[in-house]
């Protein structure tokens, strides 16, 4: 069957192959509909004729039948002209096979298992069965080429890395999925194909001297599959080799059809074990990410972020994550600056891998104990430029209404009439009530500060190149306008007072404008090396105003229509809302660049180097123009903040492989990693800003401060691995030094070991289970990772300042830190175990992981009794032990899979139980109002004196303060994190993917939150003002007013309709008529529904979200509802 030809024919064949690849590209289902004639039609459905032979679909259902019958049936269904002889193929072998709608390649692989027969596809498309044992010759050079296609869609897979076993030469598939090697040594060759997000695949072919041999490779998508390629700290590995559970998100496919505008949105609900808590719904506001729960009290709980190997500055819990200008902070409270993570354009990302705990992150170095998020940007592929573009435009709004406020009016001797309304009756004072009014300024169209927002996003990308150099470029522009608007009445007042309309920034104070550019170049340096250059630049301008800081004040204000003022019983005053008069701007540029070099000097040795920089520069401003606000607020002021961060990352490692006895193979990596992070911030402010100016110079009462931190760490690591393709053992050790470690601890050692066992590949795996379990893997991992102490924790520090003393300003130094020279890094250990199963073919996939993560030597800020230094200082001590245990389940199933209708359902469940097991000798740590760290209870748990009971003792018809009995000591009320979270993602595809519907739900069970805005606005609570309120509500309000906010800690569950999208893919001819090769349109929505018993607006608002722990709803703006229209175009 295989014939020899002269060598010159190879050149011709290469030319033919290249031509064939062009044709193949034109045959893609979504770009062309040309139907080849079929020479041997049989019963092959016409649609299958368009597919390459090995991709045609067959179904087999036979028990104990001859192999020849099965092969005939495959031939009949697929029309592939199957060729073989009985001398090679054991045709009389009896087999049982049950396969439904699988590609021919899969079917043949299944029925030929154990026969030693291999499948070869000739350049003319014939499929031959050959015995490799009878390889005729092993001399000469041939040409090997083929095409890599997606097993699900049949589309070509670009960017797949193709290697030939025993050769250091690699190739990358083109836009058409084609690859080709010339000068391949003749004989049996194993071809490997890898692509992030797909299962790795391999195929064995016979290369014949001077001939072209074609091999087509199908890659299966691998959302949770075992052979997905994962980028670890020591290079690419197959997922099945790792003993940890790792979540891989294919960002490009998610972004294409789902409403995702930030990396945070990309991660939310898609990673079991990851909790995302929003700080507010203002455009660009950051969220808190916690992987497998928080475990540190004072040090960071934020995961580390790597973008193409480079650390990103991501100290979300640091004070400097807020606006740096400082002026607003001294008056109203600083708004949060956008998260550096969200400065990465999600459209530029190829994959995101989430490593959740120390057992997986040991080698990533300091701070890896909180998990690692590895982001890989898109890479180009050889071929002509391939353009993509998308345009989205949407509208945001606040769903539902705010709870009513209750106002009592009447006579109260010491208050005069204010602004035309009766005096407010103070809840604590006797008052002759004449009316009770329910009102909510935020629900009244005239007074509300909530309007409709909008967002617009445009993205353009191009990728292409030649084999030696590929490129991928991406650019995007976003513009978001938040919900806040100046109340109509305030705008009218402003116009009346100033003779001109308020400036735009006052009228719509929340805006975010961002542009981003990403590029990645990969160059082949000869046959044994490649270099990759990756860069992204983002510039954004976020604008806010103090209007949002007075949302709480709006909520407890009554609008007096006579004077146009807002009146609040809280301060017994009426006033024109002046909170709109300070503009806060955050102007940030994020530049990240990395260079990676991969060198394969030998088939058994590779070496890699990566160096990267992440620079973030921010210029913040608070501008309070003179004369724009009413009353004493009319004095102008200005604050500026300049901040920068610089993170340098250098990683070097080498990996050597060697065979071992008994079919085992060893792989050892050895390397070093250096990370240095510096920040430098400057703040300055001044008051009495002259009208028309916006500089500090002419102001008085000026003040300034600066702050600088420099932290560095360096670690060696070694990672030996052994496997026999079924059993994988992975060990590792990292030795770290860090600038912030104590003087007595200079070298911290973090070991790890992981085991992965693919039991379904064992010969002894029961045959009866094989049809059920496509794959079954057991895994376990154990590892350590650290968190650095804070800068200065080990030092006795002084603050220097200029202070007025004895008639002049002098330099003074005062203790600011007592210091602890014995300090050590926090140490986190984790053991996790679980299994992965692929059941019923690829119809069902399950991954279950249980973990137990311990944080030892947790640094606790131990309060120092006032008798030492007034109680204003604390000392960091390694005294805490915190345990996180949990369970993560990923379940995916293809409920329906037909030509016309495809329904995929994915479910993620994450459960984390947190417990402080040891503290400062049992002494609780008080963290703030109600928050404590107490041994035997969850970290950051809420505590408050309890309402023991209540009764109308004084028979005045209401439950007042004297009617409520409150416990002397505080009791535990709940943890500020959900018991568990379940996310459900549905994806239904109709008409072979022409129409796609996706819907997601998210359920969180039992999180405890303080409804702080209700406590702050007790003056207008129903409990204190309405005698007909339920007694429990009255008691809660009375208790909160005098002593304990017990009644306002709420443990609630939420069910949220998180996202819906409907995508229609235009028919190829129509798209082509519009000048595109493909086009789709989507209607998308987020935050579409919320079901909860929470008494506030939305429990998913957490003012403390940028802090280390805790959960308080202080009345900031919840995340709004979004509806948007989106168009995706490919050229």
């Amino acid at each position, binding site marked *: 069957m295989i014939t020899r030809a002269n060598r010159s024919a190879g050149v011709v064949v290469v030319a033919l192959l290249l031509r064939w690849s062009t044709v193949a590209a034109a045959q893609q289902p979504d770009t062309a509909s040309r139907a080849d004639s079929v020479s041997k039609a049989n019963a092959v459905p016409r649609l299958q004729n368009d597919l390459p032979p090995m991709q045609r679909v067959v179904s087999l259902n036979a028990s104990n039948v001859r192999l020849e019958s099965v092969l005939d049936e495959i031939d009949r269904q697929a029309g592939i002209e199957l060729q073989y002889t009985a001398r090679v193929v054991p045709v009389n072998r009896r087999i049982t096979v049950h396969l439904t709608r699988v590609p021919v390649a899969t079917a043949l692989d299944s029925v030929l298992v154990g026969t030693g027969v291999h499948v070869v596809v000739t350049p003319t498309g014939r499929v031959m069965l050959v015995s490799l044992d009878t390889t005729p010759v092993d001399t000469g050079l041939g040409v090997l080429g083929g095409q890599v296609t997606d097993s699900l869609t049949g589309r070509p897979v670009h960017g797949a890395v193709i290697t030939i076993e025993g050769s250091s030469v690699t190739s990358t598939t083109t836009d058409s999925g084609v690859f080709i090697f010339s000068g391949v040594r003749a004989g049996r060759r194993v071809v490997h194909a890898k692509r992030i997000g797909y299962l790795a695949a391999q195929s064995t072919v016979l290369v014949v001297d001077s001939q072209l041999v074609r091999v087509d490779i199908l890659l299966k998508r691998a959302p949770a599959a075992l052979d997905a390629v994962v980028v670890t700290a020591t290079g690419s590995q197959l997922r099945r080799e790792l003993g940890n559970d790792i979540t891989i998100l294919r960002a490009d496919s998610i972004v294409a059809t789902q409403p995702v505008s930030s990396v945070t949105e990309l991660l939310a609900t898609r990673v079991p074990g990851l909790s995302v808590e929003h700080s507010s719904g203002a455009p660009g506001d950051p969220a808190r990410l916690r992987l497998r729960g928080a475990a540190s009290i004072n040090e960071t709980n934020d995961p580390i972020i790597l973008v193409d190997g480079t650390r990103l500055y991501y100290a979300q819990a640091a004070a400097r994550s807020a606006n740096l200008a400082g002026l607003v902070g001294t008056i109203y409270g600083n708004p949060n600056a956008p998260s550096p993570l969200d400065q990465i354009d999600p459209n530029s990302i190829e994959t995101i891998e989430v490593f959740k705990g120390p057992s997986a992150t040991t080698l990533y170095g300091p701070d890896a104990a909180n998990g690692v998020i590895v982001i890989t940007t898109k890479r180009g592929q050889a071929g002509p430029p391939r353009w993509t573009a998308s345009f989205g435009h949407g509208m945001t709004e606040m769903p539902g209404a705010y709870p009513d406020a209750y106002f009592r009016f009447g006579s109260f001797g*010491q208050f005069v009439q204010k602004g035309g309304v009766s005096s407010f009756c103070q809840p604590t004072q006797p008052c002759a009530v004449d009316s009770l009014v329910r009102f909510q300024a935020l629900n009244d169209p005239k007074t509300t500060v909530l309007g409709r927002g909008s967002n617009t996003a445009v993205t353009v990308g191009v990728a292409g190149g030649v084999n030696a150099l590929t490129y991928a470029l991406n650019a995007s522009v976003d513009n978001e306008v938040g919900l806040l608007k100046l109340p109509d009445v305030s705008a009218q007042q402003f116009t009346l007072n100033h003779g001109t309309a308020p400036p735009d920034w006052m009228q719509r104070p929340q805006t975010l404008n961002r542009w981003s550019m990403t590029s990645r170049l990969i160059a082949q340096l000869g046959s044994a090396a490649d270099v990759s250059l990756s860069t992204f630049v983002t510039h954004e301008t976020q604008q806010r105003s103090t209007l949002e800081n007075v949302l709480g004040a709006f909520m407890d204000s009554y609008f007096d229509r006579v004077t146009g003022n807002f009146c609040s019983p809280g301060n017994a005053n009426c006033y024109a809302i002046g909170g709109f008069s300070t503009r806060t701007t955050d102007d940030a540029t994020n530049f990240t660049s990395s260079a990676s070099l991969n060198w394969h000097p030998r088939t058994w040795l590779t070496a890699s180097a990566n160096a990267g920089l992440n620079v973030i520069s921010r210029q913040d401003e608070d501008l309070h123009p003179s004369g724009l606000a009413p009353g004493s607020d009319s004095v102008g002021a200005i604050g500026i903040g300049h901040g920068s961060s610089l993170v340098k990352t250098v990683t070097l490692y080498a990996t050597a492989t060697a065979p071992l006895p008994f079919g085992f193979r060893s792989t050892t990596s050895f390397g070093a990693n250096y990370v240095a992070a510096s920040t430098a911030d400057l703040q300055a402010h001044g008051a009495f800003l002259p009208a028309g100016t916006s500089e500090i110079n002419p102001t008085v009462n000026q003040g300034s401060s600066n702050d600088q931190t420099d932290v560095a760490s360096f670690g060696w690591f070694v990672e030996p691995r052994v496997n026999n393709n079924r059993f994988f053992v992975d060990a590792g050790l990292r030795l770290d030094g860090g600038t912030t470690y104590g003087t007595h601890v200079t070298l911290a050692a973090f070991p790890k070991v992981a085991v992965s066992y693919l039991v379904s590949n064992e010969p002894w795996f029961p045959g009866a289970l094989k049809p059920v379990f496509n794959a079954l893997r057991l895994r376990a991992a154990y590892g350590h990772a650290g968190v650095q102490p804070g800068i200065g924790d080990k030092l006795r520090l*002084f603050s220097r300042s200029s202070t007025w003393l004895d008639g002049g300003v002098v330099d003074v130094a005062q203790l600011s830190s007592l210091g602890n020279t014995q300090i050590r890094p926090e140490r986190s250990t984790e053991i996790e175990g679980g299994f992965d199963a692929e059941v019923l073919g690829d119809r069902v996939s399950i991954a279950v992981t249980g973990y137990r993560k311990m944080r030892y030597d947790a640094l606790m800020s131990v309060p120092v009794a*006032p008798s030492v230094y007034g109680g204003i200082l604390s000392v960091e001590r390694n005294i805490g032990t915190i345990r996180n245990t949990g369970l993560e389940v990923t379940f995916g199933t293809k409920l329906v899979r037909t030509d016309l209708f495809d329904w995929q359902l994915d479910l993620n469940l994450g459960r984390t139980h947190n417990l402080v097991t040891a503290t400062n000798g049992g002494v609780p740590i008080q963290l703030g109002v109600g928050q404590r760290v107490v041994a035997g209870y969850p970290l950051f748990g809420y505590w408050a004196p309890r309402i023991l009971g209540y009764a109308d003792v004084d028979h005045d018809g209401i439950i007042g303060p004297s009617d409520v009995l409150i416990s002397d000591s505080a009791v535990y009320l709940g943890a500020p994190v959900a018991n568990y979270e379940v996310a459900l993602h549905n994806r239904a595809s109709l008409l072979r993917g022409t129409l796609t519907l996706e819907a997601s739900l998210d359920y969180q069970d039992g999180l405890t939150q303080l409804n702080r805005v209700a406590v702050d606005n007790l003056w207008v609570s129903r409990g204190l003002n309405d005698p007909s309120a339920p007694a429990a509500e009255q008691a809660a309000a009375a208790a909160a007013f005098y002593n304990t906010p017990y009644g306002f800690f709420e443990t609630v569950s939420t069910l949220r309709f998180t996202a819906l999208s409907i995508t229609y893919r235009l028919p190829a001819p129509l798209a082509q008529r519009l000048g595109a090769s493909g086009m789709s349109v989507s209607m998308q929505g987020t935050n579409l529904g919320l079901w909860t018993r929470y008494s506030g607006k939305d429990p998913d608002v957490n003012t403390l979200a940028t802090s280390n722990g805790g959960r308080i709803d202080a009345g900031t703006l919840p995340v709004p509802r979004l509806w948007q229209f989106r168009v995706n175009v490919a050229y």
Partner: protein
Amino acid sequence: MITSIRRLTGGWILVLGVAMAACSPDQIVGGGTLPPGTQDPAITQTPAGAVAAYRGTLASFASPFGGAPYYFSHIVVAGVLSDELQTNSVGDLYGADPLDSRVLPEYSNPTLEPQSRALYVGDYSGLHQVRGQAEEARGLLRAYGGDSVRALVGHLYAIEGYSEIFLADLFCSGIPLSTVDYGGDYTYQPGSTTTEVYQHAVTFFDSATALATDSARVLNLARVGGGRALLALGRYAEAAQAVAAVSDGFQYVIAYAASGVASSAANFALVTPSNSAYPWVASVADREGGQGLDYRSSGDPRTRATAIGPNLFGTTLYHPDKYATDGSSPIVLADWVEARLIEAEAALQAGDVPTWLAKLNHLRETAITPALPDTTDPGTATARVDLLFRERAFWLFLTAHRQGDMRRLIRQYGRDQSQVYPTGLYPGGTGAYGSDVNAPVPALERQYNPKFTGCLTRGA
């Protein structure tokens, strides 16, 4: 193949070993060295740095003594608990002022208490901060200051001594005097009795006197402080002896700047803008609770006060004339007037009535312009004590002496608290004045100091 494996393994071990030996991670990142930044402790490990720490102590003292506008300085807290000041009289929105109404339990959870109920907590903290800062500054001066800093060290002893007097005056018996250990950690101490705290202060003043021989200002400060502490201990003759060398005219003041000149430098008497809800949180009292002295109605120029308008609740507030309303007035910490008063009391205790009276009249004739008319001997021992303490109250008005004197009247002169402190119906609430004559050590001390178990007694 086995050989190649061995070679490979051996090679890696060799590489690892060489690398580890040649290049420790700690060496590379400079672990153990100080991070650069503005808070480098090395900046205080110089003569100038040590002096800056010394000045830091003085700045630390100015705030809890008489700075900190509104309600957080020792003069105000002690004045409100005594009969010098009263709060807005009708209580606040949370009910009666515990300090003013003398109902001061040790709150189990002070963080949940309204701020006004725990004002003494800030005073307690501020005074202890002075102690800790002084201890650290003394260590720095001794280590880096050279030989010329003896007076500065003595000055720090004196300031720390005054802090301890204030603690003993205001708080219950059982005050822990924990320490910041220079160059080391810190050490918790159990509660010391009121007597022990005064005795401890005496040792500080002795040290100050020994060290500050070349600074008359510091020397006299220490002398008056020593006399004050000895007086509190009932060691009258020793007290008189301590202050004997303090000549007329000596005055040690803590200076403050007007509001707006420098932040945080104004004194407690600062009156905030008129549109504030709290233009002046306390008011000069007059016969508060019946037992209080007639500071306003006596017309005495030493305690004169001026009405500055109604507060939020319509109550007229009286501001002391001796302090400017912009907070710029200096406050006397120690002076010759106090020295003569100490001598007068010692004379009275010794039965030398003429000397006692002469000392009082000497002050009335020379310490104020125009001079006050001489006072006369009331004829009885009790009345003499009353006169002595009235003179002290008027001369030392709003300088943080009255609270200590009122406790001394109970402790040393056998008066009942109801004869000294305000009693009867508290005007700011629905109940009567309580019976507390001091403040409890804040609950945080019990919570975090394992050696502290609470007040030993709550008596005078």
